[in-house]
């Protein structure tokens, strides 16, 4: 008897249910042992703190001033690693320090990192961050609590959300649940699941009451896998290598034979 293959997991971030309490940020720091930062009010829009993700903050509730109906309102959004099905970061890593696991998390193996920061450059969601002040710096990003998921637990953030804005389960079920919520309350949700097919699909699915670009999400991303952009070229590389080498060798042989013949001709004539 073999155990059934584990189903990939996913998380719903339902921004319509978020009250901006930031318990997820606290739980995330706690589980991942990230130090506290000194914060000020109004680091970002409204009471948002900090302004952006960084090496100490793997997730962030964004406070966005949006005009809904006739009145201005704070609409919350959330930043965290999307755990892409086809992660650009992992495809860019020259040492496979980043890998996508079967359960969904894109995990970082710090023992392989050389610090080239190609993953930061590659990420379409601008997620991986670096601690530039550190003498042995590392990439920092949300882990999807891969260790907890492996042990059958939910990610830390999903356990603490007081309004069930964060749901966790098998990706198939989560996609169905997200669609169900949108269908059940079309007035509350915009009919879009951010992450369903962004860059080929992700393990985090966001729902919102307003268009995503209004709450700071990066929109307009391709619906296809980002790594394909480089694979197109890289997969032909070995063939190019053989082809070019043979071509240059042939050219060299031809040109040098000519000069050899000239030399011989010169001697005999």
């Amino acid at each position, binding site marked *: 008897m073999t155990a059934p293959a584990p189903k990939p997991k996913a998380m719903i971030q339902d921004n319509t249910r978020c009250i901006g309490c930031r318990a997820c940020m606290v739980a995330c720091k706690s589980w991942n042992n990230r130090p506290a930062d000194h914060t000020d009010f109004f680091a970002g829009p409204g009471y948002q703190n900090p302004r*952006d*993700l*960084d090496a100490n903050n793997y997730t962030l509730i964004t406070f966005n001033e949006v005009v809904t109906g006739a009145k201005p309102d704070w609409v919350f959004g959330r930043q965290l690693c999307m755990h892409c099905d086809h992660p*650009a970061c*992992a*495809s*860019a*890593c*020259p*040492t*496979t320090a980043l890998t996508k696991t079967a359960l969904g998390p894109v995990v970082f193996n710090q023992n*392989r*990192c*050389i*610090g*080239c*920061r*190609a993953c*930061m*450059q*590659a990420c*379409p969601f*601008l997620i991986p961050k*670096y601690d*530039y*002040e*550190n*003498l*042995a*710096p*590392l990439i920092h990003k949300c882990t999807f609590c891969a260790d907890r998921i492996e042990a059958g637990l939910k990610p830390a953030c999903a356990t603490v959300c007081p309004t069930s804005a964060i749901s966790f389960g098998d990706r198939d079920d989560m996609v169905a649940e997200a669609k169900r919520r949108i269908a059940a309350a079309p007035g509350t949700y915009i009919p879009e699941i951010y992450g369903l097919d962004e860059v080929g699909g992700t393990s985090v699915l966001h729902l919102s009451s307003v268009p995503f670009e209004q709450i700071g999400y*990066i929109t*307009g*991303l*391709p619906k296809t896998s*980002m*790594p394909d*952009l*480089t*694979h*197109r*070229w*890289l*997969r032909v*590389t070995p063939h*190019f*290598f053989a082809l*070019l*080498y043979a071509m*240059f*060798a042939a*050219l*060299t042989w*031809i*040109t*040098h034979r*000519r*000069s*050899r013949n000239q*030399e011989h001709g010169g001697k005999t004539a």
Partner: protein
Amino acid sequence: MIPRIRLTWWDVTLLAIMAIGVVLAVARYAGGIGSVANINNAYPWGWWVGYGIMTMIALGGVGFTITLLVEVLGVHRYHALLRPSVLMALLCYSGAIIMLMVELGRPWMVWMILVSWAPTAALYEVGWCAFLYLSVLAFEFAQVPLEQLGWGRVLRVTRAIYMPLMLLGVTLSHLHQSSLGTLMTLIPHKINVLWWSDQLPLLFLFSAMMAGPALAILEYLAAARWLGFEPRMDMLASLARIEAWIVGLFLAFQVGDLVARGAVDAMLSWSWFALSLWIEVGLGLLLPLVLLILPEVRQSRGGLATACSLIVAGVLLHRLNVTVIGLRVRHWETYYPSLGEIGITLGITAGAIFVFGVLARILPIHEELTRSAAGPRRAVVPAGALRGARGIS
């Protein structure tokens, strides 16, 4: 016998710049990247990558371009440029490696690339190719000191394997010069439409080929001036003619690509990006193309130096535009190079020029000099191919 050279005012200046670079590099290792550099979470790659690696490797393309021309295509009239070009390439790649040791967050882990299997990563391929090519360059250039030392037995071995290794070097160059462009194709969402293209690998390869002859001509003119020999203007003029063709073809390719991708509007409407593109295309391609088309420019040292400098600067700006200037992430994020970043790259560049200048004075790098003057020991066959042997067998 240790060859003695007299340090000139130029050497002292270069050494001073190197010293500043070393001090800054020490500060970087003592205080972390953040203590000297402005690169940040939004712009993880800055001047160090754009200039210190991307441009240095592109300029290092002079090695494979001239080798391709002389050894593969058999155009022996440019033979005098071969040794200087291989040495320049060796120094450019060495400079890029030194830059990498400063730029990487964990440089002591860099060997990890060589024990990984990451065929999906452009950097993996670049890493392997650059490592192998640097070895090939070192092997190629090693023949010059070996000849000087008169180590005949070693030379016989190196000459026997020269041809396959030379071909390997030319092939590897094609691969990693293009892979640096492949690397950037991954981020269409960050790079401005003026520069992101799925043809970036070819654009990078061809622009490196374009930088090659320009740098070779510049070096030859500089050597003629400071080492004191009469430059063979007929040779330079004919190479400049080839270069004009390369620049013209590259211009057509780049503009054609912009048109094909529908980026003409972005090119013609005002923005800082458009301005940067116009400087790149106008001063780096159009102007040198016009100059090189004029026969009188091709025959004049000043004219050639101007045109070739513009081409090299244009390649630098192209690399910077693709990797740094053309990138936009969140609207409030910004990046400009710090003095520390610039200082370290200047130190590396000065080091490369200094080493070149020293080697050019103690080794038979330039045929024009080795013909007349003798080094500490007469070069075995200085006028031969890079491998020294006369003719090719």
